[in-house]
């Protein structure tokens, strides 16, 4: 029989340290739904999503009961909608978002991702129509998430798209001003977006993927934090080893659930995403792990190094525990969704510039950061450009999910509730980037040799 100590340690991880499966995400290809008539295409979309995902939630709930492990989110990701909607003769793309939203509600999932376009090198007519429809689409739906890829290591950065996204983010915030601009929490701008990401708001089902697939995202900042408390004051080699061992265990559980979900839903298993995803709950914070390593407050000098170690050790530990690793795989640092980050931002120790530095060594980017509502669109675009440049040069995924707080300024807080949490409004540099963004065009792809 399994060691009693091991059994109790697993139960302690689940009950006391917030160990859970963060998401089981079913990716569904919608390429077969294309139709010249938009109404028919939307019906096809609704029918196909419901057909594939109708058992997703009940099966996941059964897995939760049998294994005694919570699966916090059940979600759906679909083919980037610009590719599907492009076949229809219509200018009204919001109807496609509404069809996605309806399907998500019927299946009982809590988010559906893929209102997306990939425009790293250029924009098709469909891409442009989709991007322009985002503010309305996110304001008139509840569960739809949108993501736009504006750059890649191979293509460079599409600065026209970057400029446009600054304006779209502002407009999305204004359209949902009555709910603290929550629309922007469902909108991500990527560089080097991945096709198998199970996490929202950036999930979409890439064109290189199968008809449908099950991707799983694990979590466990609380477990890592508790493990590190046991090795207080010891050298970093010990810290790295401890994180690796913990990540291994957490990922093995994710792998088990992924295989079980795949079997029950008769859908191929795709990947396990090895991300440390925090929640606003006390004891489930990535920032507190960094502080456990010896930093007084997250954001102070040493934070980037601590995060680099954590991120690398999580991957090293997790990679052997799963037969297929993918997605974003790294530590997330979403400010509003991490109790320790919120506290550090309130204190003023954690600022956007430091967060930007942190994104150089972890996934995924400037995430869930509230900024003053009167921030110019060009400044938002410039923030996106900086973050995309980090991703492009370092061959990694970076993203911006930034929340202009309507009518609010530094010192105020926006409340989104649930897993999205609350975010203190952080200052941005007041100096203008207007002329920089107005240039447009493309930043060329970087050299892949002479790396320094």
């Amino acid at each position: 029989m399994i060691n009693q100590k091991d059994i109790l340690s697993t139960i302690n991880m689940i009950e006391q340290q917030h160990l859970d499966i963060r998401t089981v995400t079913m990716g569904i290809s919608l390429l077969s739904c294309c139709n010249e008539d938009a109404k028919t295409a939307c019906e096809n979309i609704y029918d196909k999503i419901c057909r594939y995902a109708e058992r997703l939630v009940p099966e996941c709930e059964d897995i939760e009961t049998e294994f005694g492990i919570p699966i916090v989110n059940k979600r759906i990701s679909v083919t980037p909608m610009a590719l599907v909607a492009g076949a229809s003769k219509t200018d009204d793309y919001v109807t496609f978002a509404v069809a996605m939203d309806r399907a998500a509600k019927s299946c009982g999932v809590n988010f559906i991702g893929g209102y997306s376009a990939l425009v790293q090198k250029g924009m098709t007519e469909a891409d442009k129509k989709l991007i322009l429809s985002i503010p309305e689409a996110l304001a008139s739906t509840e569960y739809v998430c949108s993501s736009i890829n504006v750059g890649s290591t191979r293509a460079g950065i599409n600065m026209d798209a970057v400029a446009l996204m600054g304006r779209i983010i502002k407009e999305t915030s204004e359209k949902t001003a009555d709910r603290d601009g929550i629309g922007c929490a469902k909108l991500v701008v990527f560089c080097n977006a991945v096709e198998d990401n199970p996490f929202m708001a950036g999930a979409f089902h890439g064109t290189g993927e199968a008809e449908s697939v099950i991707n799983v995202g694990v979590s466990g900042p609380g477990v890592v934090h508790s493990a590190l408390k046991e090795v207080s004051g010891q050298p970093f080699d010990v810290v790295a080893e401890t994180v690796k061992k913990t990540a291994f265990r957490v990922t093995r559980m994710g792998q088990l659930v992924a295989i079980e979900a795949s079997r029950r839903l008769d859908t191929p298993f795709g990947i396990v995403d090895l991300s440390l995803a925090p929640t606003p709950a006390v004891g489930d914070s990535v920032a507190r792990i960094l502080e456990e390593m010896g930093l007084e407050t997250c954001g102070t000098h040493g934070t980037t190094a601590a995060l680099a170690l954590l991120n690398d050790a999580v991957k090293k530990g997790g990679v052997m525990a799963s037969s297929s690793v993918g997605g974003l795989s790294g530590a997330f640092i979403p400010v509003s969704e991490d109790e320790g980050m919120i506290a550090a931002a309130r204190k003023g120790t954690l600022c956007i510039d430091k967060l930007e530095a942190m994104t150089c060594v972890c996934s995924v980017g400037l995430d869930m950061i509230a900024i003053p509502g009167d921030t110019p669109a060009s400044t938002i675009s410039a923030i996106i450009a900086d973050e995309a440049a980090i991703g492009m040069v370092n061959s990694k995924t970076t993203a911006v999910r930034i929340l202009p707080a309507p009518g609010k300024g530094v010192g105020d807080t926006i409340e989104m509730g649930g897993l999205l949490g609350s975010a203190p409004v952080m200052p941005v540099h007041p100096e203008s980037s207007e002329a920089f963004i107005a240039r447009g065009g493309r930043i060329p792809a970087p050299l892949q040799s002479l790396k320094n």
Partner: protein
Amino acid sequence: MNAIITVIGRDRVGILAAVSTSLAERNVNILDVTQTILQSNFTMVMMVDVAGCSVSFKELAADLEELGRGMELSIRIQREEIFDAMHSV
């Protein structure tokens, strides 16, 4: 299919009897039992075979939880694989 039942709480007379009676009523076979007192907490770990169980896993889990509530104990049942996966390579 094997599952692990864990019972944690304040020690009192009749815990093992109550749990095993409840399992017998549902045709669940007990394969192994260990129990200790950890920091004045009663801790029992049981391995059971639920293949012949007369109710669904969901109902069994709910029944055990209910039984625990009445005795101020936390009783949970989980499939064995999760512990195997996490603690053995």
